[in-house]
């Protein structure tokens, strides 16, 4: 078995036992997707990931895309894998049936994406960008745009990109300068330089559909002046097929530490007559549209980080079972055979920590996927609004928590392999390098933190925060009388009381003229609330596992569920206690960070 694939029992546990995704088939949109259909889709995903994604993960890392005679050359396995992915229908998974989509629930698609991402995240990135571009067009595009672009995107015939970042506008999108000039025929001509555009140029698809943020000539400064444009690499000819090349120049490829199979590009729009594009949605609403999708993209980034957390865990676990080194404490006789390092408590510590991070993170992202499903298809408007609210506040956490802690998990994976982990003969170093991207793109850790504390916690008079607390409290209340879990419920209850008080304190500080100091602590707040949310989801997982154990399952299932409870226990014993000191610091709100003059560094 390939070491990095997420085990099927784990995905089944999260999808069916925890999130009950088969119940989504009661909703008309997902009527075709009962448990057996979802299981068969996961079968195909697993087979494809194993046979066609995992095998070239290393090779794509070693042979970065390069330029040859002005064309980007990628190893052939990348295109071949993506073709199979598209032929199997995965590119169209969540799309609307009207355009060739299969209306698979979002939560299920996230699990499928996690499987592929654990096998090979850089090849999977092309697919995820394409799915995201299709989603965006299906929500904001005009009827004509949908007709032109959705079928080939969902078929994987064209690929997509998200072109936001510019050299002077990374985190600060308000500063972006790319211009769009209206033409008489209703199209626009775009001029500007974009940087870090993933999948921005390659020969893997017949066309590339760039979704570009730019400004109209009369647009106000700042984010209100940003609009969204669809700018294809090749302009559609009279028959709709890709025709003349658009005025988009590849100014260079970026050489990265990870995700090396994905091309990262500098793109110049409009070096000559301007790149032809079309407005998507309304003028001035570009960032809002992008952010609508960004919520989903951010969950996908966290989901990828969780998948890499699983990959590192699996890789180091397989190694720990095989590598014999040392003897149990007390057994000093050198004539006895050495034991596998999995026998050592300290190695178990590192593996259980990875398990707690990876499985906690995936539970979080799939839970958010389930909220995305509810936001779209829950029975009534209040239920949809509630899902939307919870999703709003959980999104920065779903993006950042897996990115931070599954990276830490990958760090431990290297440690489990000792010196071998530091060599390029084992996969764990690449897994760590790949995952190092995730706290950076789609909004850095710091930007997520500001989104959480500066916007999400405050919006609607704190409605989302209150709702989240209610949900956590409901799980606590339900667990209080379950003997093995009651102490966890108590610990979570105590910390939740403190989180509420700290949050109120921070909001008061912001309102009372200490906004810069308070927001300067946003990352600490993000990490504290993140740990509380994941502890909550671990308690939920443990409740399901405990119920399973009460039914006296067979040996393998017993071991699986016991492992779940142990990971939950580990999280409550060693991770949740980290939150107290963070909250202490947030109560003090020491001014050093905000106030230290720059010349003191």
């Amino acid at each position, binding site marked *: 078995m390939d070491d990095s694939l997420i085990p099927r029992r784990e995905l089944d546990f999260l999808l069916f036992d925890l999130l009950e995704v088969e119940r989504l088939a009661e909703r008309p949109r997902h009527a075709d997707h009962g448990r057996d259909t979802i299981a068969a889709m996961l079968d195909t995903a697993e087979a494809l990931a194993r046979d066609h994604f995992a095998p070239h993960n290393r090779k794509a890392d070693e042979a970065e895309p390069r330029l040859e005679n002005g064309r980007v050359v990628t190893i052939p396995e990348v295109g071949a894998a993506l073709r199979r992915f598209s*032929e199997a229908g995965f590119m169209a998974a969540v799309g609307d049936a009207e355009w060739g989509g*299969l209306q698979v629930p979002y939560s299920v698609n996230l699990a499928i994406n996690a499987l592929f991402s654990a096998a090979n995240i850089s090849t999977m990135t092309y697919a995820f960008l394409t799915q995201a571009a299709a989603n965006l067009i299906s929500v904001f595009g005009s009827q004509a745009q949908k007709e032109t672009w959705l079928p080939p995107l969902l078929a994987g015939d064209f690929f997509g990109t998200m072109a936001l970042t510019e050299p002077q506008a990374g985190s600060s999108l308000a500063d972006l300068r790319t211009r769009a000039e209206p033409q008489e025929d209703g199209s626009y001509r775009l001029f500007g330089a974009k940087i870090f555009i993933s999948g921005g140029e390659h020969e893997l698809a017949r066309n590339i559909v760039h979704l570009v943020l730019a400004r109209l000539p009369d647009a106000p400064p700042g984010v209100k002046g940003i609009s969204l444009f669809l700018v294809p690499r090749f302009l559609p000819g009279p028959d709709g097929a890709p025709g003349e090349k658009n005025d988009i120049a590849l100014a260079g490829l970026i050489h990265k530490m990870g995700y090396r199979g994905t091309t990262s590009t500098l793109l110049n729009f409009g070096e000559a007559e301007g790149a032809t594009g079309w407005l998507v949605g309304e003028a001035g609403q570009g960032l809002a549209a992008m952010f609508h999708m960004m919520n989903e993209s951010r969950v996908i980034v966290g989901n990828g980080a969780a998948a890499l957390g699983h990959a590192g865990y699996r890789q180091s676990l397989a190694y720990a079972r095989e590598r014999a080194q040392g003897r149990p404490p007390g057994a000093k006789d050198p004539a006895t055979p050495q034991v596998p390092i999995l026998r050592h408590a300290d190695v178990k510590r590192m593996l259980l920590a990875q398990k707690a991070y990876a499985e906690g993170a995936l539970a979080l992202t799939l839970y958010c996927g389930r909220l995305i499903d509810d936001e779209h298809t829950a029975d009534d408007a209040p239920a949809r609004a509630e899902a939307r609210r919870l999703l709003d506040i959980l999104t920065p956490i779903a993006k950042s928590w897996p990115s931070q802690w599954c990276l830490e998990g990958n760090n431990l994976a290297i440690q489990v392999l000792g010196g071998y982990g530091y060599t390029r003969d084992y996969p764990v170093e690449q897994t760590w390098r790949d995952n190092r991207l995730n706290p950076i793109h789609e909004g850095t850790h710091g930007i997520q933190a500001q989104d959480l504390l500066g916007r999400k916690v405050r919006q609607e008079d704190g409605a989302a925060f209150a709702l989240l607390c209610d949900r956590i409290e409901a799980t606590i209340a339900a667990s209080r009388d379950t003997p093995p879990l009651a102490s966890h419920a108590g610990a979570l209850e105590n910390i939740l009381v403190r989180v509420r008080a700290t949050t109120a304190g921070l909001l008061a500080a912001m309102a009372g003229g200490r906004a810069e100091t308070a927001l300067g602590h946003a990352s600490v707040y993000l990490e504290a609330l993140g740990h509380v949310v994941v502890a909550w989801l671990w308690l939920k997982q443990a409740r399901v596992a405990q119920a399973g154990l009460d039914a006296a399952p067979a040996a393998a299932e017993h071991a699986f569920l016991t492992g779940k409870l142990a990971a939950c226990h580990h999280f409550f014993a060693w991770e949740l206690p980290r939150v107290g000191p963070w909250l202490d610091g947030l109560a003090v709100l020491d001014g050093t960070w905000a106030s230290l003059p720059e010349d003191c560094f």
Partner: protein
Amino acid sequence: MKVLVAVKRVVDYNVKIRVKSDNTGVETANVKMSMNPFDEIAVEEAVRLKEAGTASEVVAVSLGVKQCQETLRTALAMGADRAILVETEAELQPLAVAKLLKEVVAKESPDMVLLGKQAIDDDANQTGQMLAALMGWAQGTFASKITLADGKAEVVREVDGGLETVSVNLPLVATTDLRLNEPRYASLPNIMKAKKKPLDTLTPDELGVDVAPRLTTLKVEEPPVRQAGIKVPDVATLIDKLKTEAKVI
């Protein structure tokens, strides 16, 4: 023409097999089960015959517990038209399977039955041959190529010394070897369509077959653990050891 394909539900080839602690068999509780890989090749071959216009209907058959329905759904998602489950909780040995298939063949009257040359769980390599004998049909086993023309089949067989080509009359029982084709993945749209294809259930009683086992399993054990190798300084020592210690030359 009509093609019948037999598919078996087995422990997935990626699963590390564990022997039950009482040595009565291998652990199958909570273990991922899939279609026998040789049977996937059989389904693929049948579906290709249909796509080429040679076959008009492909019927998949599985025999065993209720969950074999999942295996049949896979066959349907790969392109089979309908499916039949002969449902039983009983242990089925190759002879019983062959007898049951014979009765299904009598009902369905296919022109060809395709099976995997063996199943990866028991590696028996018997069912196809037994079925051909019971039916009195021609057989083309270990096929790496099957060509149909004028009521005859040319089957290229993988034999120890290389390839053997036989020409046989229809109706035919053929068993598939690895090189016959590369089976497709069940695509998402086809998985969804498969749900709506017919799946009928029969029982051994309805078919009038006594499936009582003829063989008794005495004991199932793990293969012996491989001993670690050693390095030898030169070829002469190697040859010496092969002669005196391993006694293989």
